[in-house]
């Protein structure tokens, strides 16, 4: 497992960088980039060392920036939909939000993927100098009639999982459509949503129209996938072919947006629950992080160091991350928390950040 000593925090008012010395758990705020500009996501591509930031200017549109050193940034042309493409009949497709980012496989440094609202996946093979719409997913026969917006006006790709050992194998997840898998480099896509139950659909078992909020996998055993769904928490042990509901029947681990999967232990994952979609606040005014160590059979709620009264925070889907036994999450009210003991106790890195869209250990 590579050292990850940088924590990138994408916020409503810029990209905040925290760093720790190697082997230390003392994280310090070292830089702020794009001050005042909403940053939806930020990442460092481990294959190339390049830093990436996805911006959502309120006025000027979505912008993509990259940096070789994390200091000097260069604006690139963000992915664009080709002329004539439509979200639905009569609705022209334009890039409305950059919502997911992933490097390609290890064997293809400089390949990156970006997921967008309104539902297009874009691929670059020249480190972001140009992008192409992944045509077969965009042309999937289900898209125009069965994909729809969830949390945003139009369908959006928020999760991209690229098999680091196989450039032809990846998953994307879409709110609302579900998860799709390709094993031929994006030429064909199969829905992977069996076992999910969407209580907002006429047919809750429909293969298309599900609302995964975030999908992750166990890097050491990528057959094991996890998803925090709009309608509960699910786990797959067969690469997404079948999903089992692992929501906690009489406990907090149920509704939420984010999920983090252990890189090494396929039985372990974390969520930060909230009150379901009618309210979207912390449960009973208190924050907790729930962890399963047995593949979702049981959950433990951890509260030490987290506010237990008068809290209204929720955690957006990209705002929880894990590296080793260290976790971080950021909240809608600008609180940034860190745990160095597998999520069992928490300390505050800041109470004064803007709304946090994403956190990423890099």
């Amino acid at each position, binding site marked *: 497992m590579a050292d990850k000593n940088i924590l990138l925090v994408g916020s409503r008012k810029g990209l905040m960088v925290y760093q720790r010395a190697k082997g230390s758990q003392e994280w310090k705020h070292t830089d702020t980039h794009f001050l005042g500009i909403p940053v939806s996501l930020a990442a460092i591509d481990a294959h190339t060392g390049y830093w990436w930031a996805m911006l959502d200017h309120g006025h*000027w*549109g979505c912008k993509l920036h990259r940096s070789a050193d994390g200091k000097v940034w260069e*604006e690139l042309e963000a992915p664009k939909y080709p002329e004539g493409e439509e979200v639905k009949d009569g609705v022209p497709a334009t890039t409305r939000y950059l919502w997911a980012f992933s490097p390609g496989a290890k064997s293809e440094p400089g390949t990156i993927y970006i997921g967008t609202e309104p539902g297009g996946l874009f691929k670059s093979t020249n480190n972001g100098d140009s992008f192409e719409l992944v045509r077969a997913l965009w042309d999937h026969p289900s898209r125009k009639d069965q994909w729809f917006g969830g949390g945003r006006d139009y369908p959006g790709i928020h999760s991209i999982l690229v098999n680091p050992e196989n450039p032809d194998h990846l998953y994307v997840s879409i709110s609302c459509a579900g998860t799709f898998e390709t094993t031929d480099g994006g030429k064909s896509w199969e829905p992977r949503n069996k076992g999910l139950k969407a209580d907002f659909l006429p047919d809750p078992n429909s293969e298309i129209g599900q609302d995964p909020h975030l999908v992750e996998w166990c890097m050491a055993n990528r057959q094991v996938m996890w998803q925090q769904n709009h309608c509960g928490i699910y786990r797959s042990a067969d690469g997404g072919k079948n999903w089992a509901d692992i929501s906690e029947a009489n406990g907090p681990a149920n509704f939420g947006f984010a999920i983090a999967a252990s890189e090494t232990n396929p039985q372990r994952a974390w969520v930060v629950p909230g009150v379901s979609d009618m309210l979207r606040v912390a449960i009973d005014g208190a924050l907790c992080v729930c962890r399963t160590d047995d593949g979702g059979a049981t959950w433990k709620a951890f509260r030490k160091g987290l506010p237990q009264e008068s809290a209204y925070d929720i955690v957006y889907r990209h705002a929880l991350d894990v590296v080793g036994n260290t976790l971080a999450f950021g909240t809608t009210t600008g609180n940034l928390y860190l745990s160095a003991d597998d999520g069992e106790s928490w300390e505050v890195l800041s109470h004064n950040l803007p709304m946090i869209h994403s956190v990423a250990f890099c």
Partner: protein
Amino acid sequence: MATIKFTSNLKRFYPDLRPIEANCSNVREAVELIESEYEGLKDYIVDERGRLRKHVNIFIGNQLIKDREKLSDALKASDELYVMQALSGG
């Protein structure tokens, strides 16, 4: 020649931004001229379909342009065209 002027907020991204003298017959041509003078700036003003971004306004004199989709509003030599940000959010 019409004159194209910009909100100072765009100087954050284009520090050398200056008013442009434009021999253009409509707003669409003016946006293309802006792009030729400041590469990439068009993308801040219109989306990839050429429509004025939701939170951007273009004025001719004191009048908002009428055609935000195709930018067909006519420009006269005496006009001043302003690229402004809308006051979305108050």
